[in-house]
């Protein structure tokens, strides 16, 4: 066995040698002075990896735990702008929970109007103080909301609460309904500044409780049923698919609906598990809560600086050694280092053999502090002094240490003087604490404050600021020495103030000439519970403390009201390619129409529209030039209520000067629509939208002419639809009869065009036989037949281009009408004896005054012949033939279009005149339609058309227009004869009465 054991030892040695030296052989290039860091750097360089990248990566990995998103919940309201009494629904949208949303607990709370805390005792207790305690608080708000959810309209006042047999209890699980079976729940709150989660005690859920009951304990007896106003004989009074107690727990209740009144505030707190697991060896995730708030964020006010260790003396073991003058036996300590001792310039430093002594001679009262670095639990450095009356003679202060202690440097001995002004702010222990800090992960800051209480007393307060994490076990050793003139020593120790991070010398009532105090405080691992979470000035140690934060999570639904929402506007325009006619009286410019629709108004009738028009030569949003309304031809009203449409005629100059006097070409028009909607209380919603419209300019027009047919050939006749004074509306829409042929031509174009595309209703005009010299698209004229029925429209479009890149697009609209004839005065403006009768005037939307004339009556005076004529619309009849049948006061005869009636001698001798004619297509037209377009002869028709008027004949006095005064006298003078006539009749009647009565009376007297 012994041999075998030795053999094994040798075998082990060989194996070690092989391993090490073998490697060295195989890597013979590596010297024995290998530096791992430099070698690693070389490897990284060879691999092309930046070292800092890896360092950043490591830092990122280290901080990964802090980057997780805490659970959150947001509230939205439907409707957005609730009215009082209206049903308002709050929707909770949780995020960053690991649970299914239906497994979360939503605890709603509703603070109704007049239920502020200050309302308590003001007659609102019954309405507001629902839990029956002394005040109105968040618990009452919770009860208010959860009652509404659980009750759901049940007639609780007539409920039978004598018994409860519906077995509707529910046992709530920490962290959500799907967390059952998990033990040792761990609850956390999150610090959004650092991203860290802080543990709090899982003491109770945030559910509202009935008086003396607990919600979520699987017991929901009749007392709780009555409190929550649920049906004791229904498992699910709230109709949520869950039991009544689950409803009170808010299980999956992510909606809350109530009748809103102004001043209501609502909130929700959601319980579930976060996305981060706990560090325990189990399946638990962190149980966390999310609250609704717009102006309050959970944990937002956590100040890590406020995290201080728990002043729990039971967790701290401390020992204090006191004594009188320092024991001079410290000379037995052996030296370990002598370095830097000679660098002390304030005193004599001597190397006394094995003892390191740092001697400082002081000649007045002083406070001497010496301390060691590092972890020292035994053999602390010792301060010695010589001299009995330091205030009056030189005193030597010595700091000595043993080999088991730390090495000393001159800075370890620090002397301050009580009468030195600097002493007041002298942090003599700071460096010591800094050393502690360097050895103690988790300590962020050490703050030392010195206060001179009197010449014999001073107060040293040391505050250690932790980063909030659990610091490892550490030992703090401090040595505080002081001296006075007395020789007695008295030390007291106040354990209650003995906190690990705060050492206050005042805790020790020192009254000694030379006192050596060695205070060793050793803390074991501090528990998480030792740290307070301070949120918004409130200590949060446990879940129930979170209720104090809930009032800050109440939201006023009117904050989300619709006034904050912009009005959304849709804006469309037509035509798609509008044409501008720059001529002053141009008629080819399109009517640019804009139509808007507001998507989200409260009341469409209260929308105020404001239209603005701008122009530019390019799409440059910064330099649009506004066109005011007076410059917009035929513009509709630009501002006012309900003006959701706007139009104007594109008859604008092609060139204009901008604000800086630069000439520009109007290539684009920008229409801006601003809409306002007053919503009460001085609030207004606004929205705006704009469109940029490319403008095609036209300096030409489509000329429309009648067609004459000579031997089957088509030729253009008189121009029609030119928009003359008598028929200005024809300029926009040309009335035309069915089965007629129209000649179209381009007129007034500034440039010569080469290619022409004529279309009717989107289709190119095509001919069965070409009626023009050529039909290859090079003709600036065209013919087309009217084929639609009465009421239909033909839209003719001409696009003309040339090789220079010029282009115009012109449109003409034709409306198919029945042909008409109308009797009119031959020449109203001359002295001819006939005129229209003015009925009145009206003002159109553009402010233009339009005179309205009678359509049935004409006016003439006595003594002159009356001249009338026939206005033919929609077709033509030869004027030199007797195509018209006239009827004058019943006498009919054939005649031409003009008629002269004999003069009348008396006023009131009126004429009743009618005229009729036959509308039909002649054979040449029928042949042409068939030849050029293949139109069947069956499409033609005939129709008798007529008109009739009464010509009222009056004396010139009645017809003449005079001033108003003259009219009054004329009226008076004309009515005087009538009155005299009337007076005569009434006088006669009166005398008749008198006469009759007289006769009767006389007769009766005679017969007496």
């Amino acid at each position, binding site marked *: 066995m012994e041999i075998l054991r030795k053999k094994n030892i040798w075998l082990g040695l060989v194996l070690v040698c092989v391993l090490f030296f073998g490697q060295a052989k195989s890597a013979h290039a590596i010297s024995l002075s290998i530096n791992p860091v430099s070698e690693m750097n070389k490897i990284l360089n060879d691999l092309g990896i930046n070292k800092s990248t890896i360092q950043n990566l490591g830092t990122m990995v280290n901080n990964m735990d802090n980057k997780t998103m805490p659970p959150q919940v947001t509230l939205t309201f439907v409707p957005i702008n609730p009215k009082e009494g209206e049903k308002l629904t709050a929707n909770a949208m949780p995020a960053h929970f690991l649970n299914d949303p239906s497994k979360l607990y939503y605890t709603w709370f509703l603070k109704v109007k007049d239920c502020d805390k200050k309302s308590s005792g003001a007659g609102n207790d019954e309405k507001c103080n629902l839990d029956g305690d002394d005040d109105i608080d968040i618990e009452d708000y919770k009860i208010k909301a959860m009652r509404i959810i659980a009750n759901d309209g049940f007639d609780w006042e007539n409920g039978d609460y004598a018994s409860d047999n519906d077995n509707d209890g529910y046992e709530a699980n920490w962290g959500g309904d799907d967390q059952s079976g998990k033990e040792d729940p761990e609850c956390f709150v999150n610090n959004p500044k650092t991203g860290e989660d802080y543990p709090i005690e899982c003491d109770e859920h945030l559910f509202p409780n009935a008086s003396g009951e607990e919600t979520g304990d699987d017991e929901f007896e009749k007392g709780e049923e009555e409190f929550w106003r649920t049906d004791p004989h229904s498992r699910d009074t709230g109709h949520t698919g869950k039991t009544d107690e689950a409803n009170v727990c808010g299980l999956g209740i992510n909606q809350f609906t109530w009748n809103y009144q102004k001043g209501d505030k609502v909130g929700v707190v959601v319980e579930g598990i976060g996305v981060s697991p706990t560090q325990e060896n189990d399946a638990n995730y962190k149980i966390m809560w999310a609250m609704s708030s717009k102006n309050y964020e959970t944990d937002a006010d956590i100040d890590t600086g406020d995290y201080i260790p728990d002043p729990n003396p039971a967790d701290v073991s401390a020992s204090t050694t006191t004594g009188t003058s320092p024991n001079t036996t410290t000379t037995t300590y052996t030296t370990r280092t002598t370095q830097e001792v000679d660098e002390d310039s304030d005193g004599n430093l001597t190397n006394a053999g094995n003892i390191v002594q740092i001697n400082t001679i002081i000649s007045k009262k002083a406070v001497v502090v010496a301390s060691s670095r590092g972890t020292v639990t035994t053999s602390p450095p010792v301060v010695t002094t010589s001299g009995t009356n330091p205030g009056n003679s030189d005193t030597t202060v010595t700091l000595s240490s043993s080999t088991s202690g730390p090495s000393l440097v001159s800075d370890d001995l620090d002397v301050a003087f009580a009468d030195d002004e600097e002493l007041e702010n002298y942090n003599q222990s700071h460096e010591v604490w800094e050393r502690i800090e360097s050895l103690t992960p988790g300590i962020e800051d050490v703050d030392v404050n010195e206060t001179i209480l009197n010449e014999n007393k001073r107060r040293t307060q040391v505050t250690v600021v932790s980063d909030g994490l659990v610091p490892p076990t550490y030992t703090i050793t401090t040595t505080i020495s002081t001296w006075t003139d007395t020789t007695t020593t008295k030390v007291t120790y106040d354990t209650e103030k003995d906190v690990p991070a705060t050492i206050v010398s005042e805790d020790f009532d020192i009254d000694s000439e030379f006192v050596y105090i060695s205070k060793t405080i050793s803390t074991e691992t501090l528990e998480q519970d030792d740290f307070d979470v301070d949120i918004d000035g409130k200590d949060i140690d446990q879940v129930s403390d979170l209720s104090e934060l809930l009032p800050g999570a109440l939201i006023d639904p009117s904050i989300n009201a619709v006034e904050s929402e912009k009005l959304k506007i849709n804006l469309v325009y037509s035509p798609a390619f509008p044409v501008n006619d720059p001529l002053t009286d141009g008629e080819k410019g399109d009517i640019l129409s804009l139509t808007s629709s507001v998507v989200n108004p409260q009341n469409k009738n209260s929308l105020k529209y404001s239209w603005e028009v701008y122009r530019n030569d390019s799409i440059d949003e910064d330099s649009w030039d506004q066109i005011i309304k007076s410059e917009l031809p035929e513009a509709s009203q630009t501002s006012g209520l309900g003006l959701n449409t706007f139009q104007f005629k594109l008859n604008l100059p092609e060139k204009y000067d901008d604000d800086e006097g630069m000439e520009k070409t109007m290539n684009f028009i920008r229409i801006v629509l601003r809409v306002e909607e007053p919503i009460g209380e001085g609030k207004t919603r606004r929205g705006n939208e704009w469109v940029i419209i490319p403008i095609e300019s036209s300096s030409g027009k489509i000329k429309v002419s009648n067609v004459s047919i000579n031997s089957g050939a088509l030729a253009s006749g008189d121009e029609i639809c030119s928009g003359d004074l008598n028929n200005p509306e024809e300029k926009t829409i040309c009335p035309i009869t069915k089965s007629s042929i129209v000649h179209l031509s381009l007129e007034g174009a500034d440039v010569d065009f080469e290619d022409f595309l004529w279309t009717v209703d989107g289709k190119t005009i095509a001919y069965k036989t070409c009626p023009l010299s050529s039909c290859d698209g090079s003709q600036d004229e065209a013919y087309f037949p009217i084929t639609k029925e009465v009421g239909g429209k033909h839209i003719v479009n001409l696009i003309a281009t040339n090789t220079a890149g010029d282009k115009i697009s012109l449109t003409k609209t034709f409306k198919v009408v029945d042909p008409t004839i109308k009797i009119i005065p031959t020449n109203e403006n001359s002295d001819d004896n006939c005129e229209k009768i003015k009925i009145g005037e009206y003002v159109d939307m553009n402010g233009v005054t339009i005179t309205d004339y009678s359509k049935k009556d004409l006016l003439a005076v006595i003594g002159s012949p009356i001249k009338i004529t026939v206005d033919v619309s929609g077709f033509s009849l030869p004027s030199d033939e007797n195509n018209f049948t006239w009827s004058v006061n019943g006498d009919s005869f054939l005649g031409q279009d003009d008629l002269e009636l004999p003069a009348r001698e008396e006023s009131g001798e009126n004429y009743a005149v009618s005229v009729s004619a036959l509308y039909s297509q002649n054979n040449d037209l029928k042949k042409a339609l068939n030849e050029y377009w293949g139109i069947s002869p069956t499409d033609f028709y005939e129709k008798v058309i007529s008109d009739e008027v009464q010509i009222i004949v009056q004396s010139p006095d009645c017809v003449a227009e005079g001033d108003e005064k003259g009219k009054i006298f004329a009226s008076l003078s004309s009515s005087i004869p009538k009155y005299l006539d009337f007076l005569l009749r*009434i006088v006669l009647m009166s005398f008749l009465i*008198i006469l009759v*009565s007289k006769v009767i*009376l006389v007769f009766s007297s005679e017969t007496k």
Partner: protein
Amino acid sequence: MFEEKKEFKLSDYKEPLVASLVISLCLALLFFFPAQNYLQTITVVVFFLFLVPVLYLKIVAEKKLQEFGLNLENKKEGLIWGTAGFLVFILVFSLLYYFTGFKNNYLLPELAIHNFWAFLFYELIMVNFLIFILEFFFCGFIFFSFLKHLSSFTILLQFVLFAIIAILIFGFDWQTLPALAISLNSGIIVYRSRSFIYAYGSALLSFIILDSLIIYHLK
């Protein structure tokens, strides 16, 4: 002991009968005589409510107008009953004004409400003229034509006739109510004072005060 029963004689009733005929003709012509404008309407009113009765009394009946109420006799009775009638009228219409829909339905010319001179013209010319004409016809001509035979029932007779005429012309509404009240008031005053002048004064004053009250509250 026993009152002797009077023998009925037609001659005793000839004047009331003829007066009834004249009154009927006047009222009928008031309605049916064609008038095409305001001037003619006013002429009709003047003729058939004033001139014809006056001519009848002077020419046919050969009576003095003083006998038909155009006098200032019985001043004491007239003033007392005129004042009492005025006060009762104001009291009644004040109550109607404050407690019924009268104030919303009694209309005045817009110009008279906003222009004091127009108000004076309206009250002192137009209202005055109309009241005088009506008082003369109903409380003078009709009243005294039948007073001898109907005694106090004459008050009711003239009131009923006036009410029929007023309702036929204007309809029965708040606008007509003051005129009806005035008519009844006037009948009582005339019956007590034997003069329609006091009734006319009381009626004119009543209308002016009532209209003033309305205008005061409208402004």
